[in-house]
C-alpha cells in the first residue's frame, strides 16, 4: 500500500503522507482553513470546530484537524453553509466575552478579536447568563477564566511538549475552566508555554501584565543565551518615556513550532547595566598587553572566541576555559573513533525517536530543550526512554520508561555495559570485539550497580524501536575516564543505528571548543578574566574592572547542540565598549565584532557566511532557517578503546553539582523573575547520613572550595547524593560533578 494519499482540496490536487490530516495538507499547500484551537506541535485539541470542511459524497461536515484524507476524496474548505457555521461559532465565542479589550494584555494580538473581525460578527443573536469568575494568581502566571475560550492549547502543550502536565481542564459545560492538575495552586517548572499559546488574554505573564501595549513593543529576534539548546526567541523592548533607555518587557517565541523554558521566557533581563569609564578601558588594554593568559567562560559568542584565539596567536597568551577544554577533549576522543567532528543527532532526532537512552545528565534542569524533545518523543511516539543516572528525577517520571540507577563515578562502566548490550549482534571490528569480550561484566555490574536484567530489559523494550538516540550529558566531560567514555559513545554511534547527541554545558561551549586552542588552567600571574575570574576582569557581570555587554546586548553567533550556528541580536543597547574595541588597540583590525563571523574556522565546519546574511526565523511551515548547520569535518580515526579501569567509589556525603529549575549560571542569577533556590537539596537518607536537618545552615567543603548553604530536605529525592547549585558560585569546570564533601553545621 502506498504511503502517499492523493486527494483534492478546493479543486487543487494535493498529496498527504501517512498520518497527515486534511488541515496539515491544506496548510502545506497554502490553503486557508480557519482554526481557533489548532496548534501544530500537539495532537489536535479539536475544541473549536472552526476547521470543519465538506467532503464530496459525505453528509455533514468533516473536522479537518484530526481527519486524515482518503484516496481521491474531494474536500471543499469554503461554502456558504460552512461560512454560516463558522460565523455562528464565532458568535458563541463572543457570548459574554468581557469587553475589556482596551486593558487586556493581548492588546490586539488576539485570535478572538481577529476572527471576530474576519467573520464580520456585527451582531449577536445568542445570549446566556453571565457568570462571576475569579482571577487566579499562579506566581509568574495569571489566569482569568472569564477571558478563557477553553481551546485547550495550554493543557496540550503542557502535557505533550513540556511534560509538566501541570494543568487540566475542569469539565463543566459553560462553567469549564483550566485548573492546576491535582493541586491547589500551580506547581510546575514555569516554562510559561501556556502563556505563549493562549490565543486570548486568559493566561498572561504576571510581570508583564499591564506594563505595555503589544503595538508599542519592538521585536528583536535572537537566540536564547542560557543553555546550549539554541531556542529561538524574540525580545520585545520599549522605551519608558522620552529620552529613556529601552528595556526588555517580555520574551516571545514562535510557539506554533518551538518552545522555550522559563529561563528563556522570564529570565531576559541579564543585560549589563553598569558602564565603565575611559580609564578602565585603557587599563584593560594594558592588562591585555601584559597578560600571560586570558581566562574566559563559554557564555560568549563565536566572534569573541575567535578574537581571543587571534589574541593568543598575536600576543602569545594562554587561553583558559576548563569547561570548553574538557568538552573539546571529549569531542577529540569521540572523533578519534567516529572519524568526524560532530555528533550525528539533534533535538529533532530526539523528537522523532521511539527509543532513547540518556546518561550523565539531570536533564530536566540541565537542558530543558532536550527534555521537551524527549517529552514529545514520549507522548507522540510512545518512546521507550532509559534514564541512566545516580539520582532519580521526579520531573522525568512521565517520560522515562526505565530508570537505571548507577553509582556515581561509574559512567565508564555503564557505557561499556551499554555498548556490550547494544553491540551484541553488530558487525564491529576486531579491536572493538576484543574490548567487549575482555570486559569483566561481573565486576562492572557489581561496582556500577547496573544489573544484567536491566540491560536485558533494554534489549527487550527496544526490540520494536526504529529511531534511536543515545544522549550523553555533561556529567561525564570532567570524568577521569572521559576519553574512554567518548570513545564508547562513538563506538555505539558507529556500529548501531543510534544517533548520538552530546550536550554541551553552556550556551556556547561547543562554539568555543571548535574555535579556541585551549590551555590547561593554571595559577599564574597576569591573567585577564573575560566573563571569568582574573587579575583584571572584563565582564558583563558585576565587579568587573571593565564592563562589557551581555549576550542580549551584542550581535554575534553561538553554536547549539544541533551543531547549528545561530545569530544573537542587540535587544538592549550597551553604552560602553566591547572586546573588539579593546583588541583593536593591540593590533587586531576588524571594524566590528561580527566581521569575524565569516572567518570562523572552516576546519571546524564553519562556513564563510557574513553575519548580516544569516536568517533568524522559522518559515511558515515551521522549517528552521536560522543560521546554518556546521559542515561535517572528517577526522583521523586513530583512537582505540582502553580497558575499563577500576571504577571510582563515592562513599560518605556526596554532593552533585546541579542547578534547580530555571537557573543555569551567573547570568540567570541576575534576573528579576526567576526563583533563586540556593539550598543544598537532599533526601531523608542524605539528611540522616550527613546528620543535618531541614533548614540547617551548613558549611560544605569539596575539592579546594568551601561554601555555606542552607540544607533543604526534599521529599521527592531519594538516595545518598545531595544536589548543590552552581549558578551562584564559581565551581571548577575541570572537576567531576559528583564530589565527596565534608559537611559541618554552622551556627
Amino acid at each position, binding site marked *: 500500500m502506498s504511503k502517499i494519499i492523493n486527494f483534492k482540496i478546493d479543486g487543487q490536487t494535493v498529496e498527504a503522507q501517512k498520518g497527515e490530516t486534511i488541515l496539515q495538507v491544506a496548510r502545506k499547500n497554502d490553503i486557508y482553513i480557519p482554526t481557533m484551537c489548532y496548534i501544530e506541535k500537539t495532537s489536535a485539541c479539536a475544541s473549536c470546530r472552526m476547521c470543519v470542511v465538506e467532503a464530496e459524497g459525505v453528509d*455533514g461536515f468533516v473536522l479537518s484537524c484530526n481527519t486524515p484524507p*482518503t484516496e481521491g476524496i474531494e474536500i471543499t474548505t469554503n461554502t456558504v453553509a460552512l461560512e454560516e457555521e463558522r460565523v455562528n461559532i464565532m458568535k*458563541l*465565542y463572543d457570548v459574554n466575552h468581557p469587553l475589556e479589550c482596551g486593558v487586556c494584555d493581548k492588546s490586539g494580538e488576539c485570535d478572538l478579536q481577529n476572527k471576530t473581525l474576519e467573520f464580520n460578527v456585527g451582531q449577536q443573536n*445568542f445570549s*446566556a447568563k453571565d457568570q462571576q469568575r475569579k482571577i487566579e494568581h499562579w506566581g509568574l502566571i495569571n489566569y482569568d477564566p472569564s477571558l478563557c475560550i477553553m481551546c485547550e492549547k495550554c493543557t496540550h502543550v503542557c*502535557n505533550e511538549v513540556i511534560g509538566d502536565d501541570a494543568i487540566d481542564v475542569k*469539565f463543566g459545560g459553560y*462553567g469549564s475552566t483550566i485548573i492546576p492538575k491535582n493541586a491547589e495552586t500551580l506547581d510546575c517548572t514555569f516554562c510559561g508555554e501556556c502563556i505563549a499559546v493562549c490565543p486570548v488574554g486568559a493566561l498572561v505573564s504576571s510581570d508583564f501584565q499591564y506594563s505595555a501595549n503589544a503595538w508599542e513593543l519592538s521585536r528583536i529576534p535572537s537566540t536564547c543565551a542560557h543553555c546550549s539548546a539554541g531556542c529561538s526567541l524574540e525580545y520585545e523592548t520599549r522605551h519608558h518615556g522620552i529620552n529613556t533607555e529601552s528595556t526588555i518587557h517580555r520574551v516571545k517565541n514562535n510557539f506554533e513550532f518551538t518552545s522555550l523554558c522559563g529561563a528563556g521566557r522570564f529570565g531576559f533581563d541579564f543585560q549589563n547595566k553598569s558602564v565603565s569609564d575611559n580609564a578602565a578601558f585603557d587599563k584593560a588594554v594594558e592588562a591585555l598587553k601584559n597578560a600571560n593568559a586570558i581566562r574566559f567562560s563559554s557564555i560568549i559568542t563565536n566572534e569573541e572566541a575567535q578574537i581571543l584565539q587571534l589574541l593568543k596567536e598575536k600576543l602569545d597568551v594562554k587561553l583558559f576555559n576548563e569547561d570548553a577544554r574538557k568538552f573539546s577533549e571529549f569531542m577529540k576522543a569521540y572523533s578519534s573513533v567516529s572519524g568526524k567532528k560532530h555528533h550525528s543527532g539533534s533535538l529533532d532526532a530526539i523528537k522523532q525517536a521511539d527509543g532513547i537512552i540518556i546518561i550523565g545528565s539531570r536533564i530536566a534542569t540541565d537542558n530543558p530543550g532536550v527534555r521537551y524533545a524527549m517529552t514529545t518523543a514520549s507522548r507522540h511516539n510512545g518512546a521507550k526512554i532509559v534514564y541512566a543516572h545516580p539520582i532519580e528525577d521526579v520531573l522525568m517520571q512521565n517520560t522515562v520508561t526505565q530508570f537505571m540507577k548507577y553509582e556515581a563515578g561509574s559512567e565508564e562502566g555503564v557505557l561499556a555495559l551499554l555498548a556490550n548490550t547494544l553491540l551484541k549482534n553488530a558487525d564491529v571490528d576486531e579491536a572493538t570485539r576484543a574490548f567487549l569480550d575482555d570486559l569483566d561484566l561481573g565486576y562492572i555490574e557489581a561496582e556500577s550497580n547496573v544489573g544484567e536484567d536491566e540491560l536485558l530489559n533494554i534489549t527487550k523494550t527496544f526490540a520494536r524501536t526504529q529511531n534511536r538516540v543515545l544522549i550523553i550529558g555533561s556529567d561525564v566531560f570532567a570524568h577521569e575516564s572521559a576519553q574512554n567514555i567518548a570513545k564508547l559513545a562513538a563506538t555505539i554511534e558507529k556500529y548501531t543505528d543510534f544517533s548520538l547527541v552530546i550536550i554541551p554545558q553552556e550556551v556556547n561551549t561547543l562554539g568555543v571548543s571548535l574555535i579556541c586552542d585551549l590551555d590547561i588552567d593554571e595559577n599564574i600571574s597576569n591573567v585577564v578574566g573575560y566573563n571569568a575570574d582574573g587579575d583584571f576582569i572584563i565582564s558583563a557581570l558585576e565587579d568587573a574592572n571593565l564592563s562589557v555587554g551581555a549576550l542580549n546586548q551584542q550581535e554575534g553567533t553561538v553554536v547549539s547542540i544541533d551543531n547549528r550556528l545561530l545569530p544573537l541580536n542587540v535587544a538592549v543597547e550597551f553604552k560602553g565598549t566591547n572586546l573588539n574595541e579593546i583588541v583593536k588597540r593591540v593590533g587586531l583590525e576588524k571594524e566590528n565584532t561580527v566581521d569575524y563571523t565569516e572567518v570562523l574556522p572552516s576546519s571546524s565546519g564553519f562556513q564563510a557566511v557574513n553575519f548580516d546574511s544569516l536568517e533568524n526565523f522559522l518559515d511558515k511551515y515551521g522549517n528552521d532557517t536560522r543560521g546554518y548547520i556546521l559542515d561535517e569535518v572528517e577526522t583521523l580515526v586513530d583512537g582505540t578503546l582502553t580497558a575499563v579501569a577500576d571504577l571510582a567509589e563515592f562513599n560518605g556525603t556526596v554532593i552533585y553539582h546541579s542547578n534547580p529549575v530555571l537557573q543555569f549560571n551567573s547570568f540567570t542569577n541576575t534576573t528579576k523573575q526567576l526563583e533563586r533556590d540556593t539550598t543544598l537539596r537532599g533526601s531523608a537518607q542524605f539528611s540522616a547520613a550527613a546528620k543535618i536537618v531541614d533548614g540547617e545552615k551548613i558549611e560544605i567543603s569539596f575539592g579546594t572550595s568551601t561554601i555555606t548553604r542552607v540544607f533543604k530536605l526534599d521529599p521527592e529525592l531519594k538516595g545518598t547524593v545531595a544536589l548543590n547549585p552552581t549558578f551562584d558560585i564559581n565551581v571548577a569546570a575541570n572537576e567531576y560533578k559528583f564530589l565527596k564533601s565534608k559537611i559541618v553545621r554552622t551556627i
Partner: protein
Amino acid sequence: MSKVYFSTWKGESINNIGKPEEEWQESAYNLPAQYDDHRESKAFIGWDGVALFSEDVDVIRLAMEYAAQYQEYSEACGRCAPGRWGGRILYDQLDKIARGEGAVADLDHLKEIGKSMQVTSKCEIGKTVPNPIIDLMTHFEDTFMECINEQKESKHYKESIGYIAKITSPCSDACPADVDIPGYIEGVRDMRFDDSLMATRETMPLAHVCGRVCPHPCEDACRRTNLDEPISIMALKRLGADWETDHGYDFFQPMEPKPKTGKKVAVVGAGPAGLTTAYYLASEGVEVDVYEALPVLGGEVTVGVPEYRMPWDKYLQDIECVRDMGVNFILNHNVSKEDMTRFESEYDATMIASGTRISKAVRCSNERPEIQGYWGAIDFLDWVNLYEKFDIKTPESVQKQQMLPTDHVDLTGKTLACVGGGFTSMDVVRCAIRAGAKRVVMIYRRDEKTIIRNTTYEEYHEAVEEGVEFIFHSAVNEIVDENDVLKALVIDKFELVPDPNGGRAQLVKIEGASETIDFDYLIPAVSQSADLGFIPDDWDLEMTSWATLKTNGKDYMTSRKGVFASGDCEYGPMTIVNAVGQAKRGASVISRYIESGEITLTDDEIMEDHLKKLKVYDKKEKVTGWLPGLPREHSSVLDTDFRRSNNEEVNLGFTQEQALSEADRCMRCYYIAMVQA
C-alpha cells in the same frame, strides 16, 4: 412495545393526543414506561427522540431539564465551542420561555443554535441534545406559543419533579461492565493516559486484562461500523495500563477509598468477579477478605489463560491495584461448608465468585476419567500455567496419571485432540503446541465461521498459523483404550442439512464417514460447570437449570439473604468482562445492603438496565459528519516460528502512532437519556 401518549423515538411518529387511553397506538420500542417497582415514568427523552407516557407532562420544562442535564451532568461536555455555549443557550432560552418571559424570536434562536450544535459539535452528545428539544418545539408549538403569548409559566414550572438522567453510548451499553469507553479513548487521543486508565477503572479494575483478552462485545456495537470498520476498542484500553506500569507510577485510582465503615464482606474466589467485588467494596470503606483456594491469585485468568495471551506480570498489576484499594487476600484456603456458615456470622455479607472449575464430559462412549490421556481442560491448563507462570511443578500423581516424562507438561512427540470451540479449547491447543506436541487437533461440531464468532478472528488464525489442525463438523464417538491408556478416538462426521421449512439447519451424521485416529490425549473443553460443594446443604440455594447459582440478574443476591453470587458460578462459563460487570453491580448492591439491610439499585443502575433493554446501538442508523474509509489499525504479532516454542506475549499491542490514529477514529458517541418519573 410500550404504551405511549406521544413518541418520536427513532423516527416513529405516534401521536395519541386527544385520544382516549384505550385507543392509544403503541410504540415499537422497549421504552422505560415503568421506571422501577414503585414508579411509573411520565416521559422518556433521549438522543433520538422523545416519548410521553402521560398527558400531564410539562413539555417545556422537560426540554429545559434535558438541556440542563447537558449543562450540569455531562462529564463529556465543555470540550467544544458549539456544545459549551450552545448547551447553555439552549437551557437559558428554554428557561426564559418556561418562566413566562419568552419571546417569539427565542424560538428562532433555539432552532438556529440547535442546528449549529447538530452539525458542528465535537461529540454526539452535542449533536443529539437538540434533537428531542426541536421535536417538542415542533409538535407542541401551541404550548410554547401559549406561554410566550400570555407570558405565563409552563404548567409545572415550579413543582418538584424527578428527572433522572444517564450518559450512555452504544459501546458502553454493549459492555457488560458499562465501561466509559469514549472516555478512555479520549484519554489516549489527548495523550492523557492517566485519565484514560482512570476512566476504565471507574467500572473495570482489570485494565491490563481487558485490554488484552476481552472478547470485546463493545466492538459489535461500535457506531463506526456504520461508516467503515469498528474502532479497535479493546486494544486501546491497554495504553493507559501500560503507561502506568512502564513509568512505574503508583496506581491511578479513580476514587479515594472512603473511610472505614466497620462493615465486613467475605468473597469466595480471587478471580475477576472476586477481585472486582473486593475492589469496589473496598473503595466504599468496607473491609474485604478474599478467600482463594489456589496458591495464586487471579482465578481462571491466571491458571486458565496462558502466558502468551495474558502475561502474568501485567495481570499482577491489576491484582495489585485491587490490593492497593485496601483488600485482604487469603491464599490456599479452600472454603468449606463450615467456613460459609462462619462467614454468615462474622461478615455482613458474602459474595460467591468461585467460577466454574469442572470440565464437562464430551459425552462419548468409553469416557472414563481413569483412562490415562483423558485430561480435563481446566486441570490441564492449571498445570501448564502454574509451571509457566510460577514454576510450580506438576505433582507426581498427575505426572503418572497423564504419562508425563518430567515435572511439567511436556508433550514432546505426543498427539493431542481437544474437543471444544471456545476460548478454553483454543488455550488448550495452543499450549499443547508450545508444550512440543507433534500433532494437535481441534475437533469441533460446527464450522469455521462459528468458531471465529465464539472466539475471535485473531485467536483462530493464530492457532492455525501455529500448526493446530481443525476438524470441523465432527465429534468424538468413542475413546479407544488399551488397559486404560488412551490410544485412539473414533470420530464421527456431520453435515449441515438445511431445514426445508426455513428453520435452523440441522447437523446430521454422515453414516460410514467415521474414522479412527490415533491420539495420546483427549482434552475435553466443551464447557465447565460450577463446583458448589462448599455451600451448606441446608441453605438450599435456588439454582438455575445450568446448575449455577440463581439471582435475578440485577442485584445478584441469591435466594439467601446476604449471600450474593457473580461471575461464572452465577452465569455459567462466560467472559471476564461479564464477571466484572456482575461483580461491580453486586458490590454496589452489597455496599447499600450492609448498611440498610435492603436490596436497592441506584438510579444510574436502573437507567443502565432500561437502556440495555432499549439498546443504544442502532446498526441501521446513517452516520453523518465523518469521513468514511479510514481503516481500523491492527497491531502486529510475534513471528509464528518464534512464538510456537515459547510463552512470550503474542500480541505486541499498538505502536503509539497506530493507537493515536485509531483513537482519532472514535466518534465519541455519548448520548443523554432522561426519564421523568
